[in-house]
């Protein structure tokens, strides 16, 4: 019973996990490993989820926390078998640069950000309010506002220089 509710929730919000994996995973294998780790952490935390916050907010918090904190500590990670790329594929952001110049530019720009900045811009792009961003990331509302402004400036600079290089 619990498993069905969990699978349903994962599927309803699969985009959240895909986005986080795409932002933090280096290659397809890395993304798949991260996906697996995020699902595990969600499953572990699922029994204690009390619906006090929105499902999406809760999922973002756990997925980003896993991506930033746990996943980067590769040396502490126990041995595990990654899910096969044959049975699973995470749709890539900017996979077809010739078709989606804007998307690949966006990907390149986001890749230049730090781990925390990536998390913040992801939530900003998702139209999350400052309240939600501060709740998910665990920073104050005013700090979230300041950081978003800084990241926007940084992104604009990156995009401009990227465009300049392309010419």
């Amino acid at each position, binding site marked *: *019973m*619990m*498993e069905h509710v*969990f*699978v349903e929730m*994962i*599927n309803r919000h*699969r*985009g959240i996990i*895909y*986005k986080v994996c795409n932002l933090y995973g280096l290659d397809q294998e890395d993304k798949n490993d991260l996906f*697996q780790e995020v*699902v*595990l952490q969600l*499953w572990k935390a699922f029994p204690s989820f009390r619906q006090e916050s929105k499902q999406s907010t809760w999922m973002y918090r756990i997925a980003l926390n896993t991506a930033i904190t746990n996943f980067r500590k590769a040396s502490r990670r*126990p*041995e*595990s*078998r990654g*899910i096969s790329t044959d*049975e*699973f594929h995470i*749709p890539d*952001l900017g996979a077809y640069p010739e078709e*989606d110049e*804007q*998307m690949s*530019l*966006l990907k390149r*720009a986001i890749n230049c950000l730090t781990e925390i900045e990536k998390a913040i811009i992801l939530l900003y*792009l*998702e139209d999350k309010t400052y309240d939600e961003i501060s709740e998910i990331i665990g920073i104050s509302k005013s700090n979230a506002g300041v950081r978003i402004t800084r990241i*926007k400036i940084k*992104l*604009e600079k990156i*995009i401009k220089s990227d*465009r300049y290089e392309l010419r």
Partner: protein
Amino acid sequence: MNLDELKTAWREYDSRLAATEEINQKVIASMIRERSVSRIARIRKRYTGMICLFSFYTVFLGFCFFGNPFDFAFAAQYLPLAALMLSCIVMAFFLLRARIALNEVSLDKQNLNEALVQIISVYVKYGKFLKYTVMVMFFSSILLSFSIAKIPEYGTWITVFSALLFCAVIVFSFYYAGKKTDWLNSGKETEGFRADLEELKDLNPQ
């Protein structure tokens, strides 16, 4: 491209993701199962490390026993050292048996429920032996610290102080080794396996 265009590109990506196929229930279930595999891999690794460590201790204590660097004059003085060496041998032996028993459990081939039940029984069975052996090791180490004391040479206070200092070092090293090898959390590990088993029963109610 400005930030508004950036948002447009993101929305485009979002709608593409929304159009992707639903994730297969089997894939999600297999990810949850992976946790048990990871836990077993961690235990196997820990056991291998401990076998090497206790083999080294056995050889080292063997040299101490036969070389007599503490200048023991009576047979009774040898007892704590002999007990310590023997418990190291027993420890390495039990760890090796537990490691072999865990190796025999194949999570890929067997039914995972059965494998977990088998792992829990191996873990609990050898866990008890190892716990008692560690206790014997601890007390014989404490006794050893007193048996190497030399009151006639250094006087009562210095000897007592050095013996106590040695005891403190032993307590700390046991604690540190327990923490380092996650020995202190071994009970939690068994609980983790039991929780995995319960979860698996939820996943496969048949």
